[in-house]
Each structure stands twice: as C-alpha cells, then as structure tokens.
C-alpha cells in the first residue's frame, strides 16, 4: 500500500455503526387493506375481509407525508389485495410524487392491462415496481 494512503478501516466499522441503528427504516411493509377477492388456502395474512378500522385516504396520505419526512425510500404494499381499494392508484401516485417509492403485490385480477402497462412505464421513471 502506498505510504500516502491511510490504512483501510476495519471490516467491522460499518457494521458496528449499524448496531446503533439507522436514522429511519430503508423500507416498510404496508398492508393497506385485508380485503381480498380471492380465498387462497396458503394466504399468510388470512386476508379476505376488509378491516373496518383500515386507514382512510387522508390518513394514508398523512402516513406518506411522514415517510417522506423520514426519507423512507420505499414501501412494499401488500394486503389483502391493495387494488381493491378504490383510492389505490391515487395513493400510489401520491407516494411517488412525495419521493416514497412503491412496490406492491397484487393478484392482478383487478388490474386492467392498460393500467398495468402505465404503472410499469411510470415505474421506470419514478421508482415504482409491479
């Protein structure tokens, strides 16, 4: 090693810092709804019925606002079947516009081909993934 370069940091340096935690999560899993149009026997979240306490559109947007302030990079949206929420696509647009990327899991049953195509194209630009 050339004399003018400092010795490499110990391999544990960064992992040691992680023990103190990060300033915020890197990503979050968000179950927007437990409602589902299918009844898969293997469903891990026992979804099917909509929880009457699920967040309203405005409440979801406030969560996104908070995630933006925390600089959480993206959310993994599942459920339930998130596209059953009539505000799902609006929430997706709202998140991306507020610099919170969205990845979501869907059974695809309620996603029109044109909508899916648009989401993929938008994802290439703004960080969503389907």
């Amino acid at each position, binding site marked *: 090693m050339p004399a003018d370069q400092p010795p490499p940091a110990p391999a544990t340096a960064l992992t040691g810092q992680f023990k103190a935690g990060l*300033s915020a999560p890197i990503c979050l899993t968000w179950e927007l709804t437990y409602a589902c149009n299918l009844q898969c026997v293997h469903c891990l979240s026992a979804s099917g019925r909509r929880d009457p306490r699920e967040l309203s559109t405005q409440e979801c947007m406030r969560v996104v606002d908070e995630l933006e302030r925390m*600089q959480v990079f*993206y959310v993994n949206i599942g459920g339930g079947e998130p596209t059953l929420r009539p505000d799902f696509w609006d929430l997706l647009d709202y998140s991306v516009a507020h610099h919170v990327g969205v990845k979501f899991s869907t059974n695809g049953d309620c996603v029109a081909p044109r909508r899916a195509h648009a989401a993929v194209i938008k994802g290439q*630009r*703004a960080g969503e993934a389907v």
Partner: protein
Amino acid sequence: MAIDLHCPYRLNPAVALRPEPFGALVYHFGNRRLSFLKTRQLVTVVRLLASHDSAAGALDAAGVPAGQWPRYAAALAALADSEVIDAR
C-alpha cells in the same frame, strides 16, 4: 467504469441521499439499488459535484487531501457504475 477527475459529474436526479451517522444511504429510484457512502467527507464530495466543473474541483472544495484522491476516485467510479452519479 473509470472516473475522469477532469470531467464534471452530478448526483443522478433519480437518487435520494439520506444522511446517516456514518455518512449516507443512497437509494436509486430507477434501478432500486441501495448504496452506502461510508464517510461524511465522501457525502460532501458527492453533494459538491454538481456545482464544480470537475470531480477534482469537488474533491478540492471538500478538503480531501491529495494523498487520498486515488481512494476517492475509486469510490466515485463505483458510484458511477451503480448510476448514483453520472457525467454531465
């Protein structure tokens, strides 16, 4: 990808940079890759890239000692490979 210290670079607009005690976390919304900036000085360099005519200018403005420039050039090259920074 090698980095040309005489050329201008910038933080990719699709990248979010979040300060952390060790430096910063970097997330690319396009390719969805997460990267680490392992020192605060490297964070300063990356932030200064867009306002300087060359990467060397950013290194100089950030106060990186000349002896450490090869290390920083390697770090910037890795960031260019992962599209965190790009030539402008």
